[in-house]
């Protein structure tokens, strides 16, 4: 087969500090049109800075080249297929970037008068309503900065609910397939985490929950579809169960891309859900953020939402803070507004039909890859999946080849590897999420590459073990990074 990946010229580049030359200025600040203040006279001596040791001095062109070259060592969604499971690496529309960059959205101050911010408030107000409609929730806050932040928000609200009723609860039940942020957020919200095992069934059973649940259980926290890409088919019964115990059903909505317009979480009995706008709603991941993690809740939890809330009075939008039951705030100001603008734009572009089509197509794509690679790679669960499918390296282990080797070899073929070794319940997991924005042709080529690699594993396993061969750096020594930590540059500036 013809591999997508090849080798070509890249430029080396040292650390920015090593390019520095004393006295150079890149983009100098504006000139002084007011008298130059006498800092030494104004600032108490002990508070005045002496030097700025090591801070780099570069010309503008060298700064530009530095970051241009760095970028060229990266692989983005725009470079190629990026089937990172659980991350919903769908296309990030360029028009959203243009829109988010409009000065009417970027150059507005969070404390400027509400009268001057009606456009921003309208976007936010409507986005809340759209997310409520999509999820079947009654109210939505846009404040959290990412998925994990949203989880914390939702769990704090649940905690607060019980506290306000005078009967605080202490536990949250979380399946072992859950993303690590779920237990971490629960802990941060003050809960004890009660893990339930999926025991090879792929989905959570009512029995397993029943065995774990009690009157101390504030919530069951699941992900639907779960991190195996499977629909939690007993979700409604689980919801009924947890409700019967007076608890809440929290759904990690990171995988919402599988069910938009197909099912509403609210109809399934979910009480709280966080959205990952940087997954489902096409906002870019930025190499590690910023994201945005709105939270939707049922009416009973609405009073606990963070402040401020956006209200519409007549044709005017305003921010309301006087909400005594609120958990307060999770950050300064109102959330990651520019990410909301992108998500809003995405929803308006797609419409209801489009969102549904997105989810349907995401499911088709995942099932296509599942079907065409099963047998070549061991499927964790051989049943219809939703938006992602999970394989393992079981069939490759005979040849002494691991998931990591397959992943690294894929790089040579020009693909970003899938998510590996997650979820933890599948040893050597290879989790593929194509998303709906990938074409049949792209998947076919990827499938071909995966098959070629499986073949190589048998005929020439060294190829895999030495992979990647095409990249500038190869098999980075992560152990050494942890053992001999070098966490910043400590050289001496020129």
């Amino acid at each position, binding site marked *: 087969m013809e591999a997508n990946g090849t080798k070509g010229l890249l430029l080396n580049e040292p650390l920015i500090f090593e390019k520095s030359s004393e006295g150079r200025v*890149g*983009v100098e*600040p504006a000139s002084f*049109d*007011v008298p130059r203040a006498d800092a030494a006279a104004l*600032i108490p001596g*002990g*508070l005045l*800075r002496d030097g*700025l040791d*090591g801070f780099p001095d570069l010309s503008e062109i060298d700064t530009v080249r530095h970051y241009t070259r*760095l*970028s060229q060592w990266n692989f983005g969604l*725009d470079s190629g297929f990026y089937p990172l499971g659980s991350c919903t690496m769908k296309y990030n529309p360029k028009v959203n970037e243009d829109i988010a960059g409009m000065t*009417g959205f970027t150059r*507005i101050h*969070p404390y400027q008068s509400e009268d*001057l911010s009606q456009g921003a408030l309208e976007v936010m107000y409507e986005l809340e309503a759209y997310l409520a*409609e999509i999820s079947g929730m009654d109210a939505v806050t846009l404040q959290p*900065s990412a998925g*994990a932040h949203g989880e*914390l928000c939702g769990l*704090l609200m649940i905690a607060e609910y019980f506290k306000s009723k005078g009967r605080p609860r202490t536990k949250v039940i979380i399946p072992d397939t859950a993303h*690590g942020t779920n237990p971490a957020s629960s802990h941060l919200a*003050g809960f004890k985490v009660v893990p339930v095992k999926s025991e090879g069934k792929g989905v959570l059973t009512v029995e397993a929950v029943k065995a774990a649940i009690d009157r101390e259980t504030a919530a069951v926290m699941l992900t639907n579809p779960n991190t195996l890409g499977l629909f939690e088919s007993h979700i409604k019964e689980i919801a009924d169960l947890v409700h019967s115990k007076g608890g809440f059903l929290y759904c990690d909505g990171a995988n919402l891309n599988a069910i938009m317009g197909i*099912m509403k979480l609210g109809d399934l009995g979910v009480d709280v859900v966080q959205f990952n706008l*940087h997954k489902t709603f096409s906002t*870019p991941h*930025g*190499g*590690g*953020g*910023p994201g945005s993690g709105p939270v939707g809740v049922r009416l009973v939890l609405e009073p606990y939402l963070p402040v401020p809330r956006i209200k519409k009075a007549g044709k005017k939008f305003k921010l309301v803070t006087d909400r005594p039951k609120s958990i*307060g705030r999770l*950050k*300064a*100001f109102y959330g*990651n507004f520019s990410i909301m603008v992108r998500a809003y734009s995405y929803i*308006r*572009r*797609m*419409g*209801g*039909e*489009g969102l549904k*089509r*997105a989810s349907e197509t995401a499911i*088709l794509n995942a099932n296509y890859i599942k*079907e065409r690679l099963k047998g070549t790679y061991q499927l964790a669960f051989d049943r*219809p999946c939703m938006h992602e499918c999970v394989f393992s390296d079981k069939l490759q282990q005979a040849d002494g080849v691991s998931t990591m080797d397959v992943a690294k070899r894929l790089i040579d073929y020009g693909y970003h590897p899938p998510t590996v070794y997650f979820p933890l319940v599948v040893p050597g997991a290879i989790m593929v999420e194509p998303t709906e924005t990938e074409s*049949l042709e792209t998947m076919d080529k990827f499938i071909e590459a995966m098959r070629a690699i499986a073949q190589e594993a048998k005929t020439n396993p060294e190829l895999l073990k030495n992979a*990647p061969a095409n990249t*500038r750096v*190869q098999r*980075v020594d992560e152990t050494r*990074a*942890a053992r001999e*930590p070098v*966490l910043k*540059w400590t050289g001496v500036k020129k």
Partner: protein
Amino acid sequence: MPYIPHTDKDISVILKAIGVSSLDDILGSLPAGLRVKGSLNLPKGLSEQELKSLLKGLSGKNSTVEEYTSFLGAGAYNHYIPSVVASLISRSEFYTSYTPYQPELAQGTLQAIFEYQTLVCQLTAMDVSNASLYDGASATAEAVLMARRITGRHGVVLSSALHPEYRDTVKTYLKGSGDHISEVMYCTEEGRTLPGALEGAINDNTACVVVQHPNFFGSLEDVGELARIIHEKKGLLIVVTNEAVSLGLLKPPGELGADIAVGDNQSFGNPLSYGGPHLGFMATKTEYIRQMPGRLVGQTVDKNGQTAFCLTFATREQHIRRERATSNICTNHGLCALAASIHMVSLGSKGLKTLALLNLSKAEYLKERLSSAGVKPAFTSQTFNEFTVKVEKDPDSLLKSLLKKRIMGGLSLKKFHPVLSSHLLVAATELNSREEIDRFAEELAKA
């Protein structure tokens, strides 16, 4: 359908390969009665052209700090962002990539974060910095939790001159672990946290004291003295900086005794954006690394011995440690950190110092003009680029009448501190020209 490549033919090929006749065959395990009937109640989809024109209209309903003269700060600062920043962060290899889990495909992001960590350490004079947190407020809350883990103590003392929304955030974050929060009142004359007052506010169960510097009122704190006092009680000092440009002029927290330096780096490279995304930072001492939340990038080598970078100390994090992680943070503010780095590098040491001095100079000039117009500083402490004034009329109606002159005349402090009912918090940056400052003073005198 936008963004979805599938033709009808593609769909049939896929269905056939899966061995089903329609999507419904796949969705069989879904509770049928609960499927969405009809379609979502959302506005009809739009073409790109229509979308852009709709959003142009919405953005036009906002008035910007470009159209108005703004003297608003209070944790969100209007600085000039050099053109290189957007030009470089908009390279898709940066902004369309995920968290750098596969180091071979993410050396760009990784080296850039490593450099950002270094820049933050240089700015703050601390040993080690993480890759970023959400914003200054949540970073402060994370720092408090971290201080508790380090000291094994519970008490948290917040300066009341800490940004009120930061205080609120800390309170929310601490709901889970019991708050034990107290506040130390600022001095109403000096507008800062008095060492003497702090002495009375701490005890042997105090995990940490949190002071902002420059503080919410714009005043410089006597950080060194506050550090001495809390360190005597073996508690930690958390210094919060939300106007990071001040670090071009002010002694860094690391040299003043801070144990954890946190804050917001929005001032570098990140537009106001109605309050987000901004850029939480955190730096601390080497000894506390294992209690630090957030991602870390380390330098190492690859199998050929070539310098390379990767995420490290992951055992602190939730995907390994789950509920025992130092924090739940996963997606952070990577691209904002990149923007901040590029802005800092563009300035360089000389540019940054000049920029800080320019900000000080603008604010001093503003102070002088306002004073001449009869509007005096409310506090005696020295300030950087922001300060509090006392006005004679009702500040809210003053601000309203200034709006008619296209001036955003600062922040009324009434709602945050009821006693400051005739006080305005005003900031000046390099983007406020002398003429604008003069006009503001004039209009304020007239209003």
